[in-house]
């Protein structure tokens, strides 16, 4: 489907306590502006919060920064699509290994659910990471026409 309009926003945030809320707020405002429904906005906000917490807690980066990029697109039928990239310049990780430690869905478990929550709340998730080369989580949220 042809994209008819595009809006972009970039943020660089310090890795300080509760910075994920600033990222989620910015994302929510952006998503509302491109016409996303409130429930989709809430899901997006929760996914961004987990992505930022993962970066803050696990990246071990030297620059102490989280880089966010948002691209909002209105498709030809008027439905919005939002692409989000959350990047850190940290040590990277093995996504398959992280998934292998994941408890079964619905089983109570105290930690290690961040990636699972991101994947549950977003329509598409792609992780680019390499040892010492940082991590980028690319997430996509669609507002389907029939929703």
């Amino acid at each position, binding site marked *: 489907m042809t994209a008819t309009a595009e809006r972009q926003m970039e943020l660089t945030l310090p890795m300080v306590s509760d910075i994920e*809320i600033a990222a989620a707020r910015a994302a*929510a405002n952006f998503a509302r502006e491109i016409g996303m429904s409130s429930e989709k906005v*809430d899901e997006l906000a*929760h996914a961004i919060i987990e992505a930022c*917490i993962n970066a803050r807690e696990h990246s071990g980066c030297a620059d102490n920064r989280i880089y966010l990029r948002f691209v909002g697109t209105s498709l030809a039928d008027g439905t919005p699509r939002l692409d989000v990239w959350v990047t850190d310049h940290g040590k990277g990780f093995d996504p398959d290994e992280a998934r292998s430690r994941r*408890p079964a*869905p619905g089983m109570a478990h105290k930690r290690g*659910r961040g990636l699972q929550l991101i994947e549950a709340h977003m329509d598409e998730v792609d992780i680019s990471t390499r040892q010492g080369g940082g991590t980028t989580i690319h997430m996509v949220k669609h507002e389907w026409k029939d929703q």
Partner: protein
Amino acid sequence: MSEELRVAVERKPNGAILYTKGYINNVGGEEIANRAYELMDDGVRTVLLNLRETKIVNSIGISILIEIIEKMMEKGGRIAFCCLTPVIHKTFQIMGLANYATIFPAEEEAIAELKLAG
């Protein structure tokens, strides 16, 4: 979306209701835990958490809620939740919390089912 969580406690004849307002993260989760453990120490065995004014939770905050549930279960008590947003409800299900605590859509239904009013 407020960073700081506030917790209000309302004692009932057969338990208590905790009303949360704001973001349930590590700090917010600890605040809820402190209130819940005070109630448990006081002999309360049924606690309802009303999350009507909480719109955002994170996985660390939920892990603390799971600890509260476990401690209450060890004491033979019960934790329940009500008034969750659809996204928080979905998040609780993914985290497994919904298997160990009942989730009610509305407070009135929870109070009746838990027999909090006596």
